[in-house]
């Protein structure tokens, strides 16, 4: 079971969904804080929902306020980076670049792609956490107290 979990995680890495930062967070878990990563990721989902909504609203304006969009995306990129959401972070970078050069179509296209990546990440990470929960906290915690 433990091996399956490790393989699942490795796949997420190989496919570029997660990066080293995710491992860094897992290493902060211990017996007293066995669900730290899940807690952080839950906060990320909540924060992302807010940001996605704000970005969507901002993208409906005409003309686009690129400065505001870039600011919102900077936040999204930051939080994605903090949990190791590699592909989402990459879309954020692209979006910011479109903002920088004032490419409205580029922003809208990239945002659609970003939402897809985000949705996929959520699904995969959820499966991973569900499986990890089944295994139990003993094997998940990799730090002794």
């Amino acid at each position, binding site marked *: 079971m433990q091996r399956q979990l490790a393989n699942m995680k490795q796949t997420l890495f190989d496919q570029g969904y997660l990066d080293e930062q995710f491992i*860094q967070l897992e290493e902060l878990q*211990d017996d007293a804080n066995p669900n*730290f990563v899940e807690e952080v990721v839950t906060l990320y989902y909540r924060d992302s929902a807010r940001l996605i909504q704000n970005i969507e609203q901002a993208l409906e304006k005409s003309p686009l306020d690129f400065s505001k969009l870039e600011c919102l995306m*900077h936040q999204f990129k930051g*939080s994605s980076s*903090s949990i190791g959401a590699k592909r989402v972070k990459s879309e954020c970078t692209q979006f910011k670049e479109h903002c920088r050069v004032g490419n409205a179509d580029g922003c809208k296209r990239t945002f659609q792609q970003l939402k897809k990546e985000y949705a996929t990440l959520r699904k995969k990470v959820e499966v991973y956490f569900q499986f990890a929960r089944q295994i139990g906290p003993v094997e998940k915690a990799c730090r*002794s107290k």
Partner: protein
Amino acid sequence: MAVEDIGSGCSSSGDQEFHVLAVDDSIIDRKVIERLLKISCCKVTAVDSGSRALQYLGIDGERSSLEFDELKVNLIITDYSMPGMTGYELLKKIKGSTKLRQIPVVIMSSENILARIDRCLEEGAEDFLMKPVQLSDVERLRDFMLRGGEEERELGRKRKTPDDSCDCRPLRKRPTPLATACSSTFRALEEPVIVHES
């Protein structure tokens, strides 16, 4: 990373705890930095803006010096990009306050902009950390602070008046990873690091 070595526990004495004020508008980053600091055996107060940080430190209102002394913030670690007051602006306010200027300030940023780093260091920031901040960064910082604490106290004793108009304060350079090779085993706090005189 030998994280397991650190598990021997933190000093439980409240007086001796290294108190860090963390400032970040991102709830995710606040949670992570809080965890990193707690693992490094620091007492943490996390706030979501520069203005709240100033409120906490007592220079946004009229808190008495007695209350302020009880806070004993040993280090301020702040994000650079924040709405309202940036980390840089917060740094300037802290360094511009006779009450708070001796508290070391560390800036965190996701953007590796040399001009930004230079500006912060010139303004008196102790260090500049790239985000996402990692446990090794926090440990290195804490070890550096604890070592620097001795020097700070010596300087403090030599400086008789709080009106420190001399610009002989050494410019803090970003410590290189090799220079502060901290041991992977936890080192208990020997003395409290009080960077301001009561």
